[in-house]
């Protein structure tokens, strides 16, 4: 399928959905299937989005959510890489701490949000902390796997070529771990955004989660939907960026593996 055709079909899905939404909130006249009070209308939502961008008020919220997600991603990745390497190269530490890692990972992060607010306040820090707990584990598991799953033959070859421990790290473990980490980039970046938005939703004074919460507070359904659409578009843009980065970082992968993400 050509790119143009694919894009057209993707747009078609959106058009059909919006059209159905419009029809269901408009007919029968006077008493529609979907009452606009609960479901809003495409027109109202579009108008709300237009207003936000026209008066520029949305940019501040987008910038804040983006900043929180970015920091959560960076700090979570650094932590995940560090601990992943540590566990893979120190099997004793890994064995001892394994149940605790599983315990923390199985904890629903949402219960942590109030605690983080208590500890770090209503500002960005508590959202970054929430995003961190999500990103950290994904990166950690992938790096751990990446270091452990290095082909024994490649490792033996590296040793026979004369690599010392530091060079093995640089030329073998590190690229292998990074390739695993990059193959989960979509998930970890997505979770960084989720952490930021959920954190904002549960208590903040700015960000996309905050404007959705505000709209809900006054039963402004158009505002809620508009917030969700802006969030969706925001995630799509970030995802496209991640795909672009990935293409450049994983050129050495066979095509089959590239599309597997």
């Amino acid at each position: 399928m050509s790119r143009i055709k694919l894009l057209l079909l993707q747009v078609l899905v959106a058009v059909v959905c919006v059209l159905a939404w419009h029809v269901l909130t408009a007919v029968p006249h006077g008493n529609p299937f979907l009452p606009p009070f609960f479901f809003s209308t495409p027109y109202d939502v579009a108008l709300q989005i237009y207003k936000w961008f026209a008066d520029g008020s949305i940019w501040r919220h987008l910038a804040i959510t983006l900043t929180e997600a970015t920091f959560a991603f960076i700090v979570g990745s650094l932590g995940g890489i560090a601990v992943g390497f540590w566990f893979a190269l120190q099997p004793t530490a890994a064995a001892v701490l394994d149940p605790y890692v599983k315990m923390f990972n199985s904890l629903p992060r949402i219960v942590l949000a109030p605690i983080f607010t208590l500890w770090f306040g209503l500002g960005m820090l508590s959202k970054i902390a929430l995003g961190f707990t999500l990103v950290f584990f994904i990166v950690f598991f992938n790096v751990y796997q990446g270091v452990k799953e290095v082909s024994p033959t490649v490792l033996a070859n590296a040793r026979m070529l004369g690599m010392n421990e530091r060079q093995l790290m640089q030329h073998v473990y590190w690229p292998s771990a990074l390739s695993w980490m990059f193959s989960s980039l979509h998930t970890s970046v997505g979770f960084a955004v989720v952490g930021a938005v959920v954190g904002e939703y549960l208590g903040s004074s700015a960000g996309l989660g905050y404007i959705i919460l505000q709209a809900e507070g006054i039963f402004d359904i158009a505002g809620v939907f508009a917030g969700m659409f802006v969030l969706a578009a925001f995630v799509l843009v970030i995802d496209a960026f991640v795909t672009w980065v990935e293409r450049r970082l994983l050129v050495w992968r066979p095509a089959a593996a590239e599309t597997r993400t």
Partner: protein
Amino acid sequence: MADGATAEAGARESAVAAAMALRDVTIAFRLGDGSVYNAVDRTSLSVADGEFVTIVGPTGCGKTTLLNVAAGLFRPSSGSVNIFGAELFGLNRQSGYLFQSEALFPWKTVIENVAIGLEIAGTARSEACERAQKLLARVGLASFGPRYPHMLSGGQRKRVGLAQVLIRDPKILLMDEPFGPLDAQTRQIMGNLLLDLWSADRKAVLFVTHDLEEAIALSDRVVIMSAGPAARIMGDWRVPLVRPRDIAEIKLDPAFHELHREIWQTLKSEVLKGYAQTDGG
């Protein structure tokens, strides 16, 4: 027969310090259920400096295992390995090892894969790449430098592996079925290429193959291993053919046929005997 071959090898070995000498090497694997699998049993083999020795044996007899021991990647259960007269502990740094399975770094380009051996030894990157490029040209891959390994055919990858090993100029070359997955024509081309590269500075080579014809055409000595378990060396032949050789032409030589017939008769009966032992024990 086997004892005679071992004694002969032993006598040669004592005369000059061989490039590599395995003495009474026994290799046993502990299996998951706690039992022990005896793969190679009290095997001795020596390779003189500048000598090209080929091991031929049925699949699973322990050829790769023996090369791993020679490379110092695996410690034998008993016996010793000597490299230029010194006993080997740890990795055999004097040898280059061309592995049977994929061993290139998939995240490095072809030229980086070849240059890495020099780079980690401290050579400047530009110089390492320059020499890698020359070597790539020697193995007929001059224009493949910027590719990644997954973009190469099996035979091309083997040639990159060869360049990767040769760039460090090791004194001993261990090669595990380097032409295994290739078709007959390509094998001949690769064989001639290998002989060509080898004749420049005559390293000691320990080469593994399934193919008896290839073994005779390439080597100075052909060593036959029996089928496992407890595989042993069952015969050791000198190849009296002149060098330089052309793999395709040498196969037409009557002396080649004579030797091939002789080795094959022993190989056949010994291998059958080996199978009989397996069934009996």
